[in-house]
């Protein structure tokens, strides 16, 4: 089996072979998108709950589409429509949902560790769709899938992640996944956005954007949380754009084949200029397409799916 686990909580816990196995299966699902019927019946009769305590239209739609293309039954449960009030713990909510007999819970929650908590108290499979600043493993996987489609083997490749590393679950999942596959990861941003001891995660730290992009095969640009400006993490959008925004001028420093990723939604003319956002280097829509395929692969594999079991030679 590719995944010998009940849950997907983060890329920290996955082995390189597991990551590669997931990406291989994701490519199979990616092929289905080109068929007349973009749907397979493998998850028929299984129930998946999308439990979103934070608004996230993109991630939720991507998961929902993945579930539908696997023919699963879906229940959406978001904080605004749920009974989650002060005093009701995550455990109460989760146990209520499980009592309704579901097979899998996809959860987005603002608290780091919440997915691990849910996985511990529930028998159902749990997929972490983002837990605070901790991890966002499906985003990490779709980023790696996109890189692998363009670069092949990621070992020895240079990936530069730019932005608020300290508060980014996307950065953490990227760092874990990429370093496991042997890529060289550089993180770049102002020191106020750099978590302490980040080098111990196996990355290079660079405060100068021009040096950070030198020799890069990919740039992964993080979304700036604009509300952090109020907390003096950075002075202004203007200054951030000037010092860390990826503009045409920065693009001119890149290797010709270097491409640009962004997890979306973008703050145009803050972390990325409009010209670059619309330019030929960006692969943002490929990321979105791959996101559905990766999520199909994860849901399928955690449901006990095993492409290896297919060749029962007698039938």
């Amino acid at each position, binding site marked *: 089996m590719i995944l010998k686990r009940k849950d997907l909580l983060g890329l*920290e816990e996955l082995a390189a072979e597991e990551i590669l196995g997931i990406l291989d299966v994701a490519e199979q699902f990616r092929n289905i998108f080109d068929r007349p019927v973009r749907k397979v019946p493998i998850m028929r009769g299984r129930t998946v709950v999308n439990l979103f305590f934070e608004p996230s239209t993109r991630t939720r739609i991507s998961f929902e589409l993945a579930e539908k293309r696997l023919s699963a039954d879906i229940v959406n449960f978001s904080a605004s429509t749920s009974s989650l009030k002060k005093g009701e713990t*995550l*455990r109460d909510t989760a146990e209520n949902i499980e009592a309704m007999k579901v097979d899998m819970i996809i959860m987005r*929650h603002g608290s*780091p560790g919440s997915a691990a908590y849910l996985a511990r108290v529930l028998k159902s499979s749990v997929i972490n769709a983002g837990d605070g*600043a*901790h991890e966002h493993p499906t985003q990490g996987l779709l980023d790696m899938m996109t890189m692998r489609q363009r670069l092949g083997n990621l070992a020895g490749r240079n990936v530069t992640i730019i932005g608020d590393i300290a*508060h980014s679950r996307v950065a953490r999942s990227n760092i874990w996944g990429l370093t496991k596959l042997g890529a060289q990861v550089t993180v770049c941003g102002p020191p106020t956005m750099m*978590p302490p001891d980040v080098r111990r*995660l196996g990355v290079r730290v660079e405060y100068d954007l021009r040096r950070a992009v030198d020799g890069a095969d990919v740039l992964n640009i993080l979304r700036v949380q604009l509300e952090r400006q109020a907390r003096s993490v950075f002075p202004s959008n203007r200054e951030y754009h000037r010092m860390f925004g990826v503009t045409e001028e920065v693009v001119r420093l890149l290797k010709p084949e270097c491409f640009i990723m962004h997890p979306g939604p973008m703050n145009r003319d803050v972390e990325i200029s409009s010209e670059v956002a619309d330019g030929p280097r960006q692969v943002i829509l490929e990321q979105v397409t791959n996101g559905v395929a990766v999520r199909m692969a994860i849901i399928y594999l955690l449901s006990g799916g095993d492409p290896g079991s297919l060749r029962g030679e007698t039938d």
Partner: protein
Amino acid sequence: MDWNWRSIPAEYVIANVRVCRGGKLAKRRGFLHVKKGKVETVGVGEPTAEGFPTLDAGGWVCAPGLVDLHAHFREPGQEEKETIATGSRAAAAGGFTAVVTMPNTQPAIDNAGLVRYVIDRGLEAGLCRVFPTGAISTGRTGETLCEYGEMVAAGAVGFTDDGSPVAHGGLMRNALEYASMLGVPIVSHAEDRTLAGAGVMHEGYWATRLGLEGIPRAAEDACTYRDIELARATGAHLHVAHVSTRGSVELIRRAKAEGVRVTAEATPHHLTLDHSLCRSWSTMFKMNPPLREPDDVAAVAQALAEGVIDCVSTDHAPHTATEKELQFDQAPFGVVGLETALAVGITHLVREGRLDLGVLVQRMSERPAEIFHLPCGRLEEGNDADFMLFDPDEIWSVDPAALQSKSKNTAFAGQTLTGRVKATFLRGRLTWRDADGSLEK
């Protein structure tokens, strides 16, 4: 005469004990003769007093009742977490005969009436001496001083805004000056909240890895520095609560050398645990100040051994299971500590050769009583017979369900510890006896 646990008379003898006092554990066996709640004799060898019920304690250590300068008994207002009665019971089970309670109750202990209320509830429970501290400011708002004079007269032994540090340096200065007139310390929960921000654990590698907001050492050190300078300027007695960083240790060391009237305490968890435990996401490792790095832990333990840190205080902070069941960033800070404090010290400090058993006991009884001028803590002829018996070699494992505290939020759940409290006596009266019956031999 035969010893009967169920009816201990006014005069009795505990024989075959190793007496531990003055920072030393006696090499020879001795005895303790108690008469009408007072210590009649602390003797060496076979008991000289005859004709009284005598307990053969089989070589256990006989020490002064332990004294905790930092516990949250939550009453009034948060009785679902702990009451003065349940907290007293936990104290007795941990070998404590005196506890200084924190004023961050609801309402806060900010007037003489509430000070008396806490004392009365303590007397009602009758399991340990309860010494309340008062809030530094009315309603713990950090604005105006409480009526310290009246509160001290009612029995307050010090003032503190533990839990929500005094942000205003001017108010802190006034508190120190005013308290010094009354001869009581100001207890500083040293934390610059603007630096701690939304932090929930120590700022460092593990916070980075877990994506949790960090509390930098500087949040503690900057405030420790401020308060030491205020103590220097005012000549008042500053007591620094729950020291957790090597930086604060150095500030206190230097201040003491320079003659500033500063004392300090450290908790069992800051003396033995580090931030890597948070990787389990267990909220049993969420406390404030947070568990720091191994070199901080080593520095704090070293300072305790040297006397730079005067004493071990538990920062016993009960929270309900429901509250601690919340996510790490949402759960309240704090763990219970009274019932594991001595064993944690024996297991991680004494048995690892970093502290003599006699010194540990001294740092948990005589020294804290001394710095807060409490009328207890010494096992001496003529004093109240506040004492406890413990087996320094008994191995046990911490089962939260077995704790006497109303709350079970211990950071030491499942740990195998060495050293177990067998019985506690307050004014000669039994307040706790280890339930396993092993004293019946």
